[in-house]
């Protein structure tokens, strides 16, 4: 990254004796879309609120565009924020809500009207200016909240779980809309969510947070395919975990459910006799052996779920059950329950967790 636009350096936050954010560092490039992903209580919202100015860091600093804003009040920071519960002002119309930031900044009526019209076009609600918030659906209200946040041209846009209160269909369409508006305006954005699918689909980069720390920072591709910790692997996507024991560390021999497989150069420093967990994505496993797959396990089909384009098969391997996904192919019917089969995977797709 050339020059970070938003820079969070060594930030800590404690409420009394409890530390909710510990030593958080992040540089966000101009126009970048970064998601904070994690379970509730992981500190993601606290970091966002420190950027907004609602919480003061116990230590560390925050810079926007090279300017130290750590001690500035929220109303001097020029950031836009969208809340989970919309937080539109109920006594103001849609247009007045969008114009709020312009009005307090002393923008002239004519300029303000022009900007409001532009914003309402952007969120595709040009006819709704005179309505009151209670007359809009949840999705519409959240779009208005987005327009209101963007109208004063903030340097950074903060989105605090903006889609959580909406129903599934609206959530997906608004997600795409937020992303396209963000691209169009090129605004640096932080998006807080606990929904991994949301984070994967919308972000340039994801910060997976747990226990007040950034567990891993990376592109959605890296986060999904190369999780660096057990928490990230578990939290993002579906994961099969197979328990095994290293029988010979020098050759990479591992025993899993009384079957031997070899995983050269993959053991991550595990010693002979050590218990390890083998983590595998469902889509990395195939039914039957393949030339490119270097590991094979025998098992029995336990369940078959037809999901349309994909068939999810659950295979019993010893006492463990492994999920795997195969594409639906109209020429080959899905396997039947009870069938004895082999599954295979490439040791490159596998993550060994101690």
């Amino acid at each position, binding site marked *: 990254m050339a020059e970070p636009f938003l820079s969070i350096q060594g930030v800590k936050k404690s409420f009394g004796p409890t530390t909710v954010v510990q030593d958080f560092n992040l540089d966000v490039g101009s126009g970048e879309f970064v998601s904070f992903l994690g379970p509730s209580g992981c500190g993601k919202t606290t970091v966002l609120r420190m950027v907004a100015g609602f919480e003061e860091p116990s230590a560390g600093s925050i810079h926007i565009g090279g300017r130290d804003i750590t001690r500035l*009040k929220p109303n001097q920071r020029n950031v836009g924020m969208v809340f989970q519960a919309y*937080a539109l002002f109920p006594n103001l119309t849609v247009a007045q809500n969008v114009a709020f930031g312009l009005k307090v900044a002393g923008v002239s009526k004519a300029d303000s009207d022009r900007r409001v019209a532009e914003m309402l076009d952007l969120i595709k609600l040009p006819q709704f200016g005179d309505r009151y918030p209670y007359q809009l659906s949840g999705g519409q209200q959240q779009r208005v909240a987005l327009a209101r946040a963007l109208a004063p041209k903030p340097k950074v846009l903060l989105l605090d779980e903006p889609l959580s209160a909406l129903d599934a269909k609206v959530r997906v369409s608004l997600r795409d809309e937020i992303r396209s508006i963000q691209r169009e305006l090129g605004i640096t954005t932080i998006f807080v969510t606990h929904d991994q699918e949301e984070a994967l689909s919308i972000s340039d980069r994801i910060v997976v947070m747990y226990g007040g720390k950034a567990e891993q920072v990376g592109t959605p591709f890296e986060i999904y395919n190369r999780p660096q910790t057990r928490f990230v692997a578990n939290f993002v996507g579906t994961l099969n975990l197979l328990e095994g024991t290293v029988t010979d560390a020098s050759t990479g021999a591992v025993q899993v459910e009384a079957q031997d497989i070899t995983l050269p150069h993959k053991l991550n420093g595990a010693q002979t006799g050590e218990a390890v967990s083998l983590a595998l994505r469902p889509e990395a496993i195939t039914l039957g052996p393949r030339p490119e797959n270097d590991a094979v396990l025998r098992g029995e089909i336990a369940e078959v779920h037809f999901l349309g384009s994909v068939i999810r098969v659950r295979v019993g391997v010893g006492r463990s059950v492994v999920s795997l996904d195969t594409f639906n192919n109209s020429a080959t019917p899905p396997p039947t329950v009870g069938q004895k089969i082999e599954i295979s995977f490439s040791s490159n797709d596998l993550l060994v967790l101690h």
Partner: protein
Amino acid sequence: MSNLTASADVIKVAQPKARSRRLPTHWLGVAPFFIFALMFLILPTLYLVVGAFQNNAGEWTLENIANLFQPSILAAYWVSIRISLASAVLGALVGLAIAIAIVRGGLPGWVRSATLTFSGVASNFAGVPLAFAFLATLGRLGLVTVLLREVGVNIYALGFNILSFWGLTLTYLFFQIPLMVVIITPAIDGLKKEWGEAAATLGATTTQYWRMVVIPVLWPSLLGTVILLFANAFGAIATAYALTGSSLNIVPILLYAQIRGDVLHNPHLGYALAFGMIVVTGLANVFYIWFRTRSERWLK
């Protein structure tokens, strides 16, 4: 029974479907309530209103209403309105401040529950005992009066009198403030924290946020409560009567004396006096309803 079917006919215009063949039993359920309200609330009031427009011979006249505008009666209305307005507005402002303090002031939880419990009690502690309490406090021998005199402040020499306008207003505040706290606290609970945060990120100062959002949002419930407090004080007589006897010239005391002994020497002027009281509280409510429909546009 004719009464019931008559009122049922009024309703059938609005609700032709629900009426259908169940008509008589349907209305039987609410009949006791309507008969009660009619006999003991509406008709007695109407009786006085009609009487206000009649003379002793039963002829229609506006003379009684005109007679209300004699100086002594006007003065009584004026004092009543001033005391009610002062105690309502002051009660509302102080009550609002207390409600904001317990909801938004970051105080420990017990302060809030203790304040609300006490407000429930104090808002119902009115009438004669309240007058006793304030006499024991700020009367000529009251604890506060005596203590202040010992440190050299003679409040009675400074013009204070518990039997005066300000004395009565101060006493009324003892139930007005808690009533405001009880009514307005839920409204303040309804102000979302995110509104303030949204306003802050949009660059608004606290003052701008209050002027543009908080006050407009609270205004309907504030005004409604002020009207209620006003009516509450305007009709109150027990506290004033126990405090001042009949020395303070306010409308309820004048009406009380009129009912007991026809001090105005004209029963129909008494009706007009009562009618005037209803007009004052009624006008206050009409004003409130008018205001509310104006702001109704954003109220669900």
